[in-house]
């Protein structure tokens, strides 16, 4: 989901905000269920990469940011070092910082609630929350908590199912599971390519990764592809 920027005047105080409508619940639950179901693919990817069922489930419980989880296990599976796996996963999750910056003034949470809010700050919770803005500040908060908690619940249940399933199946290549990971990345990339400029960034990054692959240790071409984002993002479009 794309990062949505809103101005100061979109933020209403608690008192003047109407109660969240039913649509907020519907939006949150439909997103949580759909996204949660992707957890099957991660569960399978984790086990195929050589992680245990327990480790795969711990990723979903404590990292809880889909693309980064896929990246961590994917880089390990393709022979990259632990360091590149960690670096790629961390860089992929930096967008969550920007989401946190946007959610902090809207949630105004402290202590343990802040820790919980941070943990469920992902594409989906932020996206649903910010699209509730016309429905008032309470709907924004309700959308965030419901979507985040729902995604967390379903993502973890489906991770466990996928991990157990893949464990039972055995050799990943026999069942095509080694193609599930790149297909999942393509599926995560696709909805972000909303115009030709972004498509050009994606294609350039792919070509760049292909070109440097023979010259760099496994895993590094992914990290190096951030250069393409710098080159494109340096100037205004």
């Amino acid at each position, binding site marked *: 989901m794309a990062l949505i920027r809103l101005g100061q005047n979109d933020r209403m105080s608690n008192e003047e905000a109407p109660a969240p409508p039913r649509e907020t619940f519907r939006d949150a639950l439909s997103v949580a269920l759909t996204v949660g179901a992707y957890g099957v693919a991660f569960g399978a990817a984790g086990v195929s990469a050589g992680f245990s069922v327990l*480790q795969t489930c711990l990723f979903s419980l404590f990292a809880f940011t889909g693309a980064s989880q896929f990246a961590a296990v994917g880089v390990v599976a393709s022979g990259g070092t632990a360091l590149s796996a*960690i670096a790629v996963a961390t860089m992929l999750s930096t967008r*969550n910082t920007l989401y946190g910056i*946007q959610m902090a003034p809207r949630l105004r949470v402290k202590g343990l609630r802040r820790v919980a809010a941070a943990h469920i700050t992902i594409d989906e919770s932020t996206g649903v929350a910010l699209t509730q803005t016309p429905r008032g500040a309470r709907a924004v908060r309700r959308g965030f908590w419901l979507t985040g908690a729902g995604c967390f619940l379903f993502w973890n249940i489906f991770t466990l199912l996928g991990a157990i399933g893949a464990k039972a199946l055995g050799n990943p290549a026999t069942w095509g599971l080694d193609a599930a990971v790149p*297909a999942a990345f393509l599926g995560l990339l696709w909805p972000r390519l909303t115009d030709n400029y972004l498509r050009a960034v994606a294609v350039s990054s*792919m070509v760049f*990764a292909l070109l440097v692959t023979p010259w760099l240790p496994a895993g590094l071409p992914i990290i190096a592809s951030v250069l393409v984002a710098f080159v494109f993002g*340096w100037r205004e479009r």
Partner: protein
Amino acid sequence: MSASTSWIVLLATCMLCFAIKLVGYYIPEAWLAHPRLQRINALVPISLLGALVIAEGLVDKTRIVLDHRLAGLAVALGLLFARAPFPVVVVGATVTSALVYHFH
């Protein structure tokens, strides 16, 4: 992959991904308001996901390899063009790849 490697990747990824989320709740909005930083940050996931498609679909260690995974990826691409939902895309790629692996 050794047992210690898998735990290192797991623990470090979990801690760093959480820390990066938490940072957003502590730093002022103005710090990341620079337009150039915003532009680059918005493009980083696209570059990384694009490179990950290549690394996971066409590469074995440091060699470019065209195998059953590419067939799966091609089907995934077709399904995405046909606006198929995410699980269908992943399952389509998986089944295709398995078939090519067995019958090639």
